[in-house]
């Protein structure tokens, strides 16, 4: 019995890490655009394109790496369109992001039908999935190996990137310029920093990571493409970005929360809870987190006024 519960938790941890990876990847990409001052609602579409072209590339090249290259390229293309419209043409970022998301949905379905002649999903033995990495030494140590070994490369990449993104944003010139662009563009411009270029670069990096996240969806643990398979993860990432402000460590914490919600809800499903309710859990968690954290971040004045209203001491009555 004791052993059972232990296995239960260990495999849950492994599941959390697995489900956290894609949303972490896309959110870390979004950290760059967030810091550069762009509200990037287009992450969802970029991920979806990454997932679709990942499958296509994997089939055409016969390798998962080929899939990754294809998927990332498609997603970067979306990112370029996004930043050309938003940065160069100064179109509204919500409108452009929304349009690109809709386009990604329509395009992937249309192409699925055009190429495979089917609707819905692409399941094909020719799709090569990502390999699992067995970390030497650790793999065979019982509990540790189960937690730390046996994931696809993108899972390891995602967690390593938390540190790397932090270094880039806070210790390198590129990161500094990106942050300044988002925080005070006129200061950056007055010193010759090309803010538009910084925003384009941020969007490109974001496209790369969003594409990788998409490829993880379609070539990682499930090897297939299904229509709208990003299923809101891009939007959850945007929610994480809103309350983390793009800070990589807070992004990690937020994503782990969703990873947990995802993994725990899958467990609920095996316990017989309706899959519809189970699928709702991550969305409910993310929207609740968004509300809770904006409530916590509310200006103190409101908190004080609330206290003021409940406190019996009122200024009125004190004459002058």
């Amino acid at each position, binding site marked *: 019995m004791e052993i059972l519960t232990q296995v239960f938790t260990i495999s849950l941890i492994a599941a959390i890490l697995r489900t956290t990876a894609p949303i972490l990847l896309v959110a870390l990409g979004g950290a760059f655009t967030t810091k550069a001052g762009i509200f990037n609602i287009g992450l969802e579409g970029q991920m979806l394109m990454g997932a679709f072209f990942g499958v296509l590339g994997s089939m055409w090249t016969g390798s998962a790496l080929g899939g990754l290259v294809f998927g990332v390229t498609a997603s970067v293309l979306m990112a370029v369109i996004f930043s050309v419209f938003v940065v160069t043409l100064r179109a509204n970022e919500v409108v452009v992001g929304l349009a690109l998301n809709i386009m990604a949905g329509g395009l992937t379905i249309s192409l699925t039908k055009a190429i495979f002649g089917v609707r819905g999903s692409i399941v094909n033995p020719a799709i090569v999935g990502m390999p699992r990495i067995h970390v030497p030494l650790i793999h065979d140590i019982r509990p540790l190996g189960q937690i730390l070994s046996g994931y696809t490369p993108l899972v390891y990449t995602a967690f390593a990137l938390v540190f790397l993104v932090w*270094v880039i944003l806070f*210790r*390198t*010139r590129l990161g*500094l310029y990106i*942050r*300044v662009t988002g*925080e*005070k563009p*006129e*200061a*950056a411009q*007055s*010193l*010759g*920093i090309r803010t538009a270029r910084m925003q384009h670069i941020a969007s490109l990096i974001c496209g790369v990571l969003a594409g990788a996240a998409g490829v993880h969806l379609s070539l990682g643990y499930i090897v297939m493409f299904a229509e709208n398979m990003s299923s809101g993860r891009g939007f959850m990432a945007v929610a994480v970005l809103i309350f983390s402000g793009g800070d990589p460590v807070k992004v990690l914490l937020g994503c782990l929360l969703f990873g947990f919600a995802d993994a725990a809800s899958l467990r609920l499903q095996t316990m017989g809870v309706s899959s519809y309710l189970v699928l709702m859990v991550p969305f409910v968690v993310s929207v609740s987190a968004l509300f809770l954290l904006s409530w916590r971040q509310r*200006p*103190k*004045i409101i*908190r*004080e*006024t609330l206290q*003021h209203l409940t406190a019996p001491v009122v*200024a*009125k009555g*004190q*004459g*002058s």
Partner: protein
Amino acid sequence: MAADIAADFAIEMIGITKRFGPLTANRDVSFAVRKGEIHALVGENGAGKTTLMNVLFGMHLPDSGQIKVNGAQVEITSPQVAIGLGLGMVHQHFKLVPSLTVAENIFLGMEIVRGGLIDSASQVAAVRALSASSGLAVDPTRVVRDLSVGSEQRVEILKVLARGARIVILDEPTAVLTPQEGRDLFRTLRGFTDQGMTVILISHHLDEVLEVSDTVTVLRDGAVIGTEPAKGLTEARLAQMMVGRPVDFGRKRRDGTAGAPVLTLTRIHARDDRGLPALMDVSLTVHAGEIVAIAGVDGNGQTELAEVVAGLRGPSYGRMNLNGRDIAGAPADIVRGAGLAHVPADRLVRGVDVQASIMSNILMGRQDSSAFSKGGMIRWGRVRAEAAALIKRFDIRTQGPDASVKSLSGGNMQKVVLAREFSQGKQFLLIDQPTRGVDIGATEGIHDEIMRRRAEGVAILLISVQLDECMKLADRLLVMFQGCLVAELDPKTVTVNEIGLHMMGASHNRKASA
């Protein structure tokens, strides 16, 4: 000391013309600055000072004319070229990044990088050295968000020095400083010229121009009116050169006595957007037919005070009474209903809707009043008639009530705000920076209009960072420092120096330590 090297110019701008569409901002301007002098460039808003300096600094390309730096003809196509030539500009609105440290701000764009990472230790050391050699005291490791305005300005100047500037341009540097801080700044600038550097000072504060500069150039309507040594010039003469006619600098003549209290604030406390205390224990009364002015350095709680009075920010404590009605924490519509008219500090942000028509802007605040609506429906015909009448009365230069506000000049936009707020017959007028960005000619008109309201018995609370404006208009002068009212002064007898001391919190600190 500069006279014997008269031919040795740091800057020569010859025959500069710069047009923006139909408007000529600089017309055949020739402007020369000798090495090692402080050269003041004065003129009204819109006279072309800023444009000329933007041309010099490479932010605009001139349509014709040439520029020489240290005797060599140059083409300044971008600020980077200007910086390369040893020019540096301290903008009126600081361009600092709040979340970065002083050292990071100073080295922004020219970071010391080692192994791909920014070497902050070296940057801090370099700023310490520069701070010591220039006499500008700052702590390089502090985050700019926590600095005072005076320190921010020192960081801006250090930024320019760190880039090797030998010719420093300062745009209205004293606008945000107390008179005493201003004097410290001038001492620093004099130190620069003693080291052989050159300073160009853009200003419209005539007294400080005469006090600090060696030479003065006056611009009017985009053209040079004259360049003269500061010695021998008077304020009156300078003003006449700037405006083209004699200007009345005296206090406004006033008659009538103050009536009953209209606005009373009792022990008001409030917090700013970040939740920090912004107003502490503010009590004041404004009577009918009286102008009470709040003087102070920008950012000492004036914004919050205006917002609290206007019903845009709830006080955390205290009592407010307008025309006998309790308005503490009441929303703006209730306060307006109790008799408030309000000219806000930043008209583009708060005073107008630039996308909408003049007519629509005139309506704001009265869309539910019986004069302009019936059964919930707006009577646009009446609104149009009112707008047309106000355009005439306030001399707003426009095509008509349907013209959009964004088609107006800054001064005319301000007139739209004044027209709306002054014409409603309200008993209390809150006026925040009424002449910011308005030229001297229009300023006089606005001041006359304010005095007329006073004569009609309106109670007026004037908030201004312009000391001369406060002294010219006020019946009583209150000084604000760090969210407190620290002094009540009589503008008839007080000196600028005395006000300055209060603005720096001298009296406040004495009180606190006592």
